[in-house]
């Protein structure tokens, strides 16, 4: 029974390689709930909270990409340079739990837990983020779409650490919206991230909490790109807007549970996506 608290990424990687089945803990905001509720009883733990290398972000020299450390707390994304580059990420970060949770929780934890309600995940999906996984001896990049496999299932292999995600800086509008039944500190009933790339005239729409994992609405994206010129900011005709939402809803795969109903979730993502598209084309 051990707890290892590595101080460098190298130490962390050596530790995970030596004990691939050890439980990795980032901010603790998911894992400790499972332990407190008696759903998980770890014996060996590797805690990443003091690995400062993964609690930063780095902008590439040409400012086309940003690599966000897996342990960077959400709080640090809400304002400042990262928020300017990724408004949708900032907006999603601000909806995560409470200020106390945002001081501890991180993208690494969201990816590691891989809940479909993870607030940052629709943003990573819409931005086509790359997840950077390391072992002591190797490194691989994997698209976030391939990384997220299902409800609380991901492509991380034993011995690997989620070190960072790489996000492209996109010239265009991006936004995030989330429905919950309370006006703060609420788990998503449905969420939506919409990103418009004005340079290439493309759009990305990703949905949270309406499927086993994040739902990327590629068919609707292609359809709306064929209907309107996304390189320009111009009002979307009401009939197109309606159909856009309807198509988004039909791509979602929600279920009934104690938080909401499938029908409401479909309605919610239709509404949120219409509102975000409207905002994108008026702001």
């Amino acid at each position, binding site marked *: *029974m*051990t*707890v*290892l*608290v*590595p*101080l460098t990424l190298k*130490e962390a990687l050596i*530790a995970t390689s030596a004990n691939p089945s050890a439980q990795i*803990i980032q*901010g*603790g*905001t998911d*894992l*400790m*709930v499972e*332990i*407190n*509720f008696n759903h998980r*009883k*770890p*014996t060996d*733990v590797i*805690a990443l*909270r*003091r690995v400062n290398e993964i609690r930063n972000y780095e902008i590439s020299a040409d400012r086309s990409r940003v690599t966000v450390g897996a342990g960077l*707390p959400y*709080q640090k994304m809400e304002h400042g340079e990262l928020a300017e580059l990724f408004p949708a990420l900032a907006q999603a970060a601000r909806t995560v*739990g*409470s*200020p*106390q*949770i945002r*001081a*501890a929780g991180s993208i690494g934890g969201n990816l590691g837990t891989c809940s479909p309600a993870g607030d940052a995940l629709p943003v990573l999906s819409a931005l086509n983020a790359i997840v950077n996984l390391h072992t002591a001896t190797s490194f691989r990049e994997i698209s976030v779409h391939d990384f997220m496999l299902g409800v609380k299932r991901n492509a991380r292999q034993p011995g690997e650490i989620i070190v960072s995600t790489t996000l492209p800086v996109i010239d265009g509008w991006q936004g995030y919206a989330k429905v919950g039944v309370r006006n*703060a*500190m609420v788990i998503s009933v449905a969420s939506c991230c919409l990103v418009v790339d004005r340079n290439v005239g493309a759009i990305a729409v990703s949905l949270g909490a309406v499927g086993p994992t994040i739902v990327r609405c590629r068919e609707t994206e292609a359809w709306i790109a064929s209907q309107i010129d996304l390189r320009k900011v111009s009002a979307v005709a009401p009939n197109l807007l309606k159909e856009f939402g309807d198509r988004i809803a039909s791509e979602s795969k929600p279920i009934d549970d104690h938080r909401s109903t499938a029908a409401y979730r479909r309605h919610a993502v239709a509404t949120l996506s219409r509102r975000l598209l409207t905002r994108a084309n008026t702001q």
Partner: protein
Amino acid sequence: MIANTEIYNLTVNGSKHEVRDAWVGESLLYVLRERLGLPGSKGACEQGECGSCTVIMDGQAVCSCLVMAATAIGSEITTVEGLTNDGTLTAVQDAFITEGGVQCGFCTPGLVVAIEHLLANNPEPTDLEIKESISGNICRCTGYGRIFEAVATAVSTRNAGR
């Protein structure tokens, strides 16, 4: 690398405390309350949804129920017991009493710590900043009205005193 098996040290309210024979899954909240004799931090949800266990750790207000205690070595932890060291009350604590911000009092230590943290970083918060900063601290008794009043009073007391 720091490795813990049976013994580790935590730095709480400026002093080092030794923790022995702990189970690995113990939260910082449990260790503070049950092993270190610091029961001021309260547990009411075990999942970061109520804020009663709020402590300041390395300058951040966090839920101690979601910190694995054995990973908190090397961190500076301040609990409600450590807000003052001479037994006097802070302006926030005083205002909670005078404005009726305390009823059953179970949420109070966590709220006091969260508000101390807010005011340390933002001495003149707007009403919305106050509300957002304590939106993770559930109070079931007061409906928050007297708590908002207490924060307003604490802000003016602190700002008058500087």
